[in-house]
């Protein structure tokens, strides 16, 4: 197995803590902290070094003055004795008395500068730590130059220790923040990974899955709550769609099974009945097709795919056409059919679609009202009302009638696709018109308002 294949398997299961945004933030944070600590330590270091150097300088200067004074007040022998007796812990003193070296050193290092200039130089001793580092310079006295130096290797050790400590401090801080960041990322990711797994379940069709919400009310809980709300809506819509699909299946199943029976029986029919039987089947088939067409048109209108053929429409003219077309239907049922058009108004809209919608409403009013009742169309400016004395619609059904495939007439005595009112509503919405149903005591009043 190749390396990238292995990596693929390792990474495929979801994101790793070091891929997360929390980890990225951790990295930025650690870098900032490290820079801060390094800056602090380095400034501290500089202060310390300068202070130490000052002390060495002051010390050497004091010693220089002491020996210059001594050279003025004592003779050469006493001076040598003093130098010999000098405590090497205070300062290291060496003087070249004509030929001998007097003091702590057996030689004078070359190129020593005169104080206050100083130089570091190493000396070897017989003790356990053989190499000593000294800093010092020459002081001019009456008896010639005297080397005054002081041990500074302890300072070097101190600096060494300091640098060491600083390094560990930085390393520790870095390590700690990174470790904590990693753990935090992992903790945050655990919830995200959980969300991820649950959404995979939802993707697989378990639409009742919900994300867990804790009592902390943090940003994750808010996200989960919002996500759950989206899921609620989705599930609800899905159920509605399923309901509609069931209804369609049911609505089409009946005529289709009629067709099946009809076709099967054709072969047994006497020849003179064939034409009628065929016509009957065609009618049934046309009804199915009409339902399909209505479904398709409805979706297109609802979703705005159908372009409206917009033109100015005189509402009075439209209602007059409506009346002319429907008049014969009312007449056949001996209904009193009246049109009032006190004020004309012009709107922009698709004439054919609007006519179709309005005709559907008028047709319904005539169809569902008893013989001899009265139906009234009133168009006053941008408001059209269609009032009848039919059975009306119960309050609880007034919204439901606009849903797809809902028919209030359970016997399905009247022919129809069950989509008529959905279509009416869709067409009116596309025209930004409102439709409102109310009671006519008895009967139904449909009120349409154009903007």
């Amino acid at each position: 197995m190749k390396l990238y294949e292995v990596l693929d398997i390792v990474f495929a299961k979801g994101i790793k803590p070091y891929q997360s945004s929390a980890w990225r933030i951790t990295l930025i944070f650690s870098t900032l902290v490290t820079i801060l600590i390094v800056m602090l330590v380095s400034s501290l270091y500089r202060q310390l070094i300068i202070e130490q150097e000052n002390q060495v300088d002051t010390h050497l200067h004091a010693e220089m003055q002491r020996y210059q004074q001594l050279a003025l007040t004592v003779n050469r022998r006493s001076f040598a004795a003093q130098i010999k007796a000098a405590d090497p812990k205070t300062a290291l003193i060496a003087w070249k008395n004509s030929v001998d070296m007097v003091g702590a050193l057996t030689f004078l290092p070359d190129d020593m500068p005169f104080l206050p200039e100083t130089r570091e130089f190493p000396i070897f001793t017989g003790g356990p730590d053989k190499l000593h580092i000294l800093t010092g310079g020459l002081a001019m006295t009456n008896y010639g130059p005297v080397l005054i130096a002081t041990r500074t290797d302890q300072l070097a050790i101190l600096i060494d220790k300091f640098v060491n400590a600083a390094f560990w401090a930085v390393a520790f801080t870095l390590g700690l923040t990174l470790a904590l960041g990693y753990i935090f990322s992992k903790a945050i990711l655990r919830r995200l990974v959980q969300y991820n797994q649950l959404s995979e379940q939802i993707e697989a069709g378990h639409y009742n899955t919900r994300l867990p919400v804790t009592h902390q009310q943090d940003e994750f809980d808010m996200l989960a709550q919002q996500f759950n709300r989206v899921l609620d809506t989705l599930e609800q819509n899905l159920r509605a769609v399923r309901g509609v699909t069931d209804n369609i299946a049911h609505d089409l199943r009946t005529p289709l099974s009629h067709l099946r029976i009809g076709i099967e029986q054709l072969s047994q029919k006497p020849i003179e009945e064939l034409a009628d039987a065929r016509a009957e089947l065609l009618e049934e088939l046309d009804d199915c097709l009409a339902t399909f067409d209505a479904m398709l048109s409805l979706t297109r209108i609802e979703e705005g795919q159908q372009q409206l053929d917009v033109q100015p429409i005189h509402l009075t003219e439209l209602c007059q056409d409506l009346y002319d077309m429907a008049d014969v239907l009312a007449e056949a049922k001996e209904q009193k059919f009246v049109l009032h058009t006190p004020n004309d108004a012009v709107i922009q809209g698709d004439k054919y679609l609007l006519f179709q919608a309005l005709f559907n409403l008028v047709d319904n009013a005539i169809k569902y009202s008893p013989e001899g009742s009265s139906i009234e169309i009133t168009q006053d400016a941008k408001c059209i009302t269609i009032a009848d004395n039919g059975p009306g619609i119960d309050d609880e059904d007034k919204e439901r009638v606009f849903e797809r495939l809902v028919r209030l007439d359970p016997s399905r005595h009247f022919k129809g696709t069950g989509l008529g009112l959905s279509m009416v509503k869709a067409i009116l919405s596309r025209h930004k018109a409102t439709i409102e149903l109310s009671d006519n005591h008895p009967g139904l009043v449909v009120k349409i308002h154009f903007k």
Partner: protein
Amino acid sequence: MTMRILIVEDDATTLKYVAEGFTAQQYSVDSATDGQEGLTLAKHNQYDLIVLDRMLPKLDGLTLLSALRTSGNQTPVLILSALSHVDERVKGLRAGGDDYMTKPFAFDELLVRAEKLAQRNVPEPTSTDIEVGSLKMELLTRIVTLDGQELMLQPKEFQLLKYLMEHPNQVISRTLLFEAVWDYHFDPRTNVIDVHIAKLRRKFEELGHGELIETVRGAGYRLCKGH
């Protein structure tokens, strides 16, 4: 004189059904199964009518139609389409189509529409009277007589009867009758036409000729010539 008709349709079943139907009616039928072929045929031959499918391979029906009209060809075109939406109809007619029919359709209706379009190319008959059997219609005076007795018809009834008399012995669908009387194009899932026809038939019955208008179930109405 035989009518020449071009059918551009990519669905083999529909093409066969339409072509056989027209051939049976003594039409001379040419066919093309894609837009490119259809356009070439239409440009190089003189047809009385083109039946054009809306969705075609190679060249879309509407594009073909626009190309044809741009080249100055005024042959009547009847668009056949599976798209039943009102806006599709408007698009088709705007592209230069003369009529629009939605699939699935009854061949009888296609035939009536085709005849109507094809006849547009021949001059209108000079006569202003139509006669079908004992039924007579004077178009100028709008007087209709049956066996010499005048019938009192309402405007819509007159228009419906005129359409039926122009196509005697042919089954006329409700959609065709609807379009003949009203300027609104939508599937009239209503019995407006049936009520008008019933009234018309009642007037015929009063004169003892109720059988003149025959109801053809699943298809429409037919005006019979003889008794």
